[in-house]
């Protein structure tokens, strides 16, 4: 399929999600909340350990690099500022996004792709059950809720990682660390991070679902679709991140 064709499919899927989210419920087809919670556990809760580990290691790394470089200028007391701002507005949403793409986005594509190959999606259509409402919508809502939540958790854990270095290597006391962080960061840093994670969530889940629903050609097709969904999601996320950072920078 051409790039234009892919984009067309992508917007069509978005339009259908919009329909089933905002118009469907008024036509007697409500959102299945049980399925949404089920997907929230699969997409979000089960991704938590990996997100936590990633965020912790990033917090540690930023603090270590910062401590090394800033101490040359005798500015190691600025390490908490560095950790807070980079994690809240940039690295937190981005790295949590990468983890969720690798773990949950790929799983969504593989699952929907396998269903497509196994005629399950066709069977749903023949039973007059709309696949977008039945399969995509719960995953969409789960991702839109869980990625920002994971991002906030990841922010906390990253900052805790920074604290370990400041406390044990720089002999900074905890109160000072927290105070410096609160002083340095602005609520806008957190909000911009959350806004980003909402945009990332939308990109990740729509790209993953679209790749899964359009699988052709058996097990090999599922594999290719999963790879392409991961690659496309990461690229789309990085581009969106650059655009959003620029927006927040200039506004």
């Amino acid at each position, binding site marked *: 399929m051409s790039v234009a064709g892919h984009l067309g499919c992508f917007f069509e899927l978005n339009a259908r999600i919009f329909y089933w989210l905002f118009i469907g419920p008024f036509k007697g087809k409500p959102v299945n909340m049980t399925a949404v919670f089920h997907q929230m556990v699969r997409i979000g809760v089960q991704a938590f350990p990996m997100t936590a580990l990633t965020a912790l290691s990033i917090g540690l790394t930023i603090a270590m690099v910062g401590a090394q470089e800033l101490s040359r200028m005798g500015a190691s007391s600025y390490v908490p500022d560095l950790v807070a701002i980079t994690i809240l507005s940039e690295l937190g949403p981005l790295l949590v996004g990468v983890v969720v793409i690798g773990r949950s986005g790929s799983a969504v594509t593989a*699952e929907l792709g*396998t*269903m497509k190959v*196994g*005629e*399950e999606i*066709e*069977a*749903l*259509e*023949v*039973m*007059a*059950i*709309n696949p977008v409402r*039945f399969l995509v919508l719960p995953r969409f809502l789960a991702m839109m809720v869980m990625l920002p939540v994971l991002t906030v958790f990841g922010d906390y854990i990253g900052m805790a990682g920074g604290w370990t270095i400041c406390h044990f290597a720089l002999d900074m006391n905890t109160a000072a660390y927290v105070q410096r962080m609160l002083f340095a960061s602005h609520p806008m840093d957190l909000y911009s991070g959350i806004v980003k994670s909402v945009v990332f969530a939308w990109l990740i889940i729509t790209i993953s679902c679209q790749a899964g629903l359009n699988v052709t050609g058996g097990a090999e097709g599922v594999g290719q679709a999963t790879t392409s969904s991961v690659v496309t999601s990461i690229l789309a996320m990085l581009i969106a991140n650059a655009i959003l950072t620029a927006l927040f920078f200039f506004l």
Partner: protein
Amino acid sequence: MGEPLIEIRDLVRKFGERTVLNGVTFRVEKGETMIIMGGSGCGKSTLLRHIIGSMKPTSGSIKIFGREITDMPQPELERLRLRFGMNFQFGALLQSLTVGENVALPLIENSRVDPAIVDLVVKMKLELVGLTGFEHLKPAEISGGMRKRVGLARAVALDPELLFSDEPTSGLDPIMTAVIDQLTLDLTRKLDMTAVVVTHDMVSAFRIGTRMIVLGAGRRAGTIIAQGTPDEIRNHPDPEVQQFINGEPDGPVPLKLSPEDYIDRLLGHEREKGVHY
């Protein structure tokens, strides 16, 4: 006889250069059991997919319940689909749901029925196909033949007026084949359901069919070569039909190519390039 339930006229479907269905025309009256026969890859399943509206024809007309479905908008097609059930070749069960949930799915999604009644209907439908007590297993935990029977139970869950079955008995043992045939007979004769069954199991076809069509192979691929009641088909003069229903290895559909054709096909590539041998 009144309005036919299904009326197909000049149905043509091309995949790229290849014509899979070429001018298929037939009708199915209410209460009939129409058998679609033909060799592997002759377009039987493709034909069925067009009738249920999941594929769009290149040209031609398909009418179900007197309504043209080729250019029908999605919501209307969905309403129409509530009136028929489809039994897929490999069951097409949702792997993430249990057997019971699979059968309950059309009921839960398309009707507002009390959960207790859904439960009852699921038990009844599974009893029909001889699978009572398997409600809590996942499709991956049961055999292929059982999956197929669950697919049939799901197809009749909403008591449809029209049942489509894609090779309902292939891969089943003779006893189960007879059970499924008997079930189809009961549904059509007693409940006045109309059925369209794709099969190449001759015993089962002649047991349940009231009318049959045979799709051709080779040169006549994608066209109907014979059409009629089981007796008419059994005595049909066309040698290809006779070869098919009697299961003979050689005949109009050749077992092997002639030696010249064989050499041609084997070395055709080199010949085109001008290599002499």
